[in-house]
């Protein structure tokens, strides 16, 4: 077993390209659980939590985008300035685990694991984030919808490093809410992210834990986009109800030991309605 601790992106990429079967370790909050439960065999490790480029984020006011390095932690993302720029992602960050987990766990790790219950993923889906990768074949960028390919499956190729995600900084309300059986430190049984683009009059809803991947809800989005008055913060109750119903219908939940399909679908409807009411306080 070897453990490399590169401090630059070049070094990290070269190490991984040279040894594509090595395991990337960021905060270890997913990886070490798998190792401890012996669901994953680890031979060589490349730790990325000291790679300066991956720990950085940058805001481009011209293109109005935010690029967040893969090793940025949830405890950074849950606070200012992220809270103002990407509220849905910051709110999702706050729901992750405990303070200890948020200090160690990273956005890149959430993407690396790609669990349908990953709390960072519905906001990234709703923000239509772009995921940046680098590896033996050079650099490439994928829309989130193409990056996540299944439950705990993604488009990352062997030897590739997730370097960052780029998200737009939008004007308009956002939110994230998740249901679990405990008041903290709990895996979502259902999660909903809402992102509004007031300038384009667009609305995006993404559902977590209720399908093999994060699900978008085009029908619900269309209803809100057509009916909402962004300037007045107004959405009529019937439209809100119809959108929540459409989100319910878009869910593809299953029964498992964490919850039932029926409850998950119900929760998606309730959370969608509540997020919409928070975003559009007036009937």
């Amino acid at each position, binding site marked *: 077993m070897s453990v490399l601790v590169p401090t630059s992106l070049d070094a990290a990429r070269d190490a991984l390209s040279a040894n594509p079967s090595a395991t990337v370790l960021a905060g270890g909050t997913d990886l070490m659980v798998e190792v401890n439960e012996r669901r994953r065999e680890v031979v060589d490790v490349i730790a990325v939590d000291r790679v300066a480029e991956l720990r950085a984020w940058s805001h481009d006011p011209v293109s109005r985008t935010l690029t967040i390095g893969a090793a940025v932690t949830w405890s950074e993302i849950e606070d200012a300035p992220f809270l103002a720029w990407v509220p849905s992602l910051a709110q999702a960050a706050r729901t992750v685990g405990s303070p200890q987990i948020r200090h160690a766990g990273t956005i890149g790790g959430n993407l690396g694991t790609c669990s349908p219950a990953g709390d960072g993923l519905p906001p990234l889906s709703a923000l239509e984030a772009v995921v940046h990768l680098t590896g033996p074949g050079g650099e490439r960028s994928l829309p989130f919808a193409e990056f996540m390919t299944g439950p705990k499956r993604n488009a990352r190729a062997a030897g590739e490093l997730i370097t960052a995600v780029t998200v737009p900084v939008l004007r308009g309300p956002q*939110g994230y809410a998740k249901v679990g059986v405990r008041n*903290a430190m709990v895996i979502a049984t259902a999660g909903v992210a809402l992102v509004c683009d007031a300038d384009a009059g667009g609305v995006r809803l993404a559902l977590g834990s209720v399908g093999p991947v994060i699900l978008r809800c085009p029908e619900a989005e269309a209803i809100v986009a057509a009916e909402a008055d962004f300037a007045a913060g107004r959405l009529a109750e019937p439209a809100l109800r119809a959108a929540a119903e459409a989100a319910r219908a878009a869910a593809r939940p299953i029964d498992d030991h964490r919850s039932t399909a029926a*409850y998950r679908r119900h929760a998606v409807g309730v959370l969608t309605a509540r997020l919409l009411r928070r975003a559009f306080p007036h009937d």
Partner: protein
Amino acid sequence: MTATTVTAGTVRGGLGQSVVRPDGTAKVQGSFQFSSDYTADDALWGATLRSPHPFARIVRLDVSAALRVPGVAAVITAADVPGVPTYGLISQDQPVFASDVVRFVGEPVAAVAADHPATCRQALQAIVVEYEVLEPLTDPERAVDGSVPPIHPDGNVIRHQRIVRGDQTIEGPVTVEGTYELGRQDQAFLGLEAALAVPDHDGGGVELVVATQWLHEDQKQIAACLALPAEKVRLALGGVGGAFGAREDISLQVHTCLLALRTGRPVRIAYDRHESFLGHVHRHPCTVWMRHHADHDGRIRRIEARFVFDGGAYASTSSAVLINGITHTQGPYACENATVDGWAVRTNNLPSGAMRGFGVVQACFAHESQMDKLAAACGLEPLEVRLRNAMHTGDRLITGQVVENVAPVERIIHEVAALPLPDEPVGGHDGDILRLPGGVGRTTDAAHVRRGIGYAVSIKNLMYSEGFDDYSTARVRLVDGTVHVKFATVEVGQGFVTLAQQIARTELGIEDVVLDRIDTGVGSAGSTSASRQTWMSGGAVLGACRLVRDRLLALVADREGMDAAALTIDGAEIVDSGGLLRIPVAVAAAGVDIDETFEHHHPATEDLDELGQGNCHTAFAFCAHRAVVDVDTELGLVKVVQIATSQDVGRVLNPLSVLGQVEGGIAQGLGLAVMEELLQDGGIVKNPTFTDYLLPTFLDMPPVVVSLVEEPEPHSPLGAKGVGEPPTISSTPAVVAAIRDAVGRELPRVPVRPADICL
């Protein structure tokens, strides 16, 4: 909290004071040695191969490939058990290793010892087991109705017991009825099972350092399986990180010793969380049907009940849990007529056994749910119906036993009702998500919240029952001004180590009290369970201290030419009734060496007869809870806002320790109410990790307000009653009653799931 008086003077660190644990600093600093921290030079690692099937016949078992794995020192199976092939606390029906059939998922089939845990895993994988999978018996009712062939030579019924008392013909005029269900709760201690076995040089014996609850009972069972005399199996307590009943049964003890004896080298075994979930007994899942017959004014006239406890694959303590459950059918209420039918049955589910509350948790959830139904049926407030039926000292139970203990049921009900309600508005303080149901998930706004308040009251037996003489032993030596106390009382975190020092200080007036290692080098202390150690081992330490004190006073009397009967210890000094003598005990004890051992026994109890009659229990304690909850009714999410409790404790010997038990017990009761359940489907365990077996976090645990009722118990050596179990028992039904109050549903099952509330 009620103030306590230090009756025996003012020695520092004596009874009644919030003395800090002797192991507290080490625990906080991380230097405390838990049993998993013990190792020895040259120690091998052990690991266990477990059944993946709930019920299967072993067709072939071949360990030869495992033996060839480099680094493997031994592989053992049922064929290598030299003594009795089975063990168990009450009946010895559980194999050390399965030989012909496996009866639950996780049953041990073989064990290996090797130079490294990874080698152990490799070796386990190399063991070939061919199974013929059988249809598992997972529905306890099928065991009751006898429709399934026995899955064990002892049959599918572990015990059946009735209680028939009084007039069996009474009906109504008011009747309330319900069927209640409790899921399987895990003890979920943080310190996982671990042990180190070191063989004697001559190979003729073994020393085992282990986290357990009763060293001498382990010793007896291990020795029988090893075919060794008890003195050749010496046990010492490894630091215990919680127990809650899960360490009453043997888990890795025999395996570790066998591997050490086989290899002639020290062997350590340590379970991980997954293995722990499979490797120890759990609280019995249970279905309870009850029907109460009462007058229009709410007075109970007769209770009918039927209990079915799912004992899982092996008997463990199921028969005692059953008796505890059914004999507590009435709760802390007077009732003269009863018809109760109770079953503890065998299934291919995980074995069930002891857990904090021991059968009474199941009874209490049912009788308290019934009391609320009765209140509603009679148009009474929940507390009023309880007050009208409250039991008193001298009342006869449905077993015919008279309650001879202090029974301040009315008082605890009044006190819990008088405790302040939370000042927090419904839905918490504006905008603070941590105060809302759903917590950090940001699901809920204050407008979605409804508040509910619920009450529950319990009675719990203390000590062992049904003729069991669960005595305790303590040895106290006064050597040159220092007190040395030795006992085999297992410290699981409850604080007996603190209490033992407090007792010795107060009785002997000497602050310097040294505790010897907790091991089998002294007589049995009985189990650290059944809320019994303060009473039983406290009584033993007290008794031994008094023998030492009498000899010291006799010595001083001799020296001073006085009458020993005139001397007493007052605080830290020896004084005489005439006021002539006053010398520090430490001075009087210089150069002295006194050594006394004392056994404390409680009065004998009896078995129940055919009709469930008999003085089967030793003593009783009582507890009341009030829960305030905020519920998001649309999503079914619960935030417990506050728990208030009034508990009958006899006497508070260490306020801080009592508070710890009260708060910890409530957390465990809350867990059962709203989240804790180990799920099995067709015998397969679905959530054996802390990712999915949810325990309450700090954000789930509310502030607790406490009123301790101190009416010293005349039968208890120190006037104190055990305080460990009651907080767990009635907190569960109180929380559920509060949720019912908020949402208006019956909610007959715990844990209450979100879907039960909102779908």
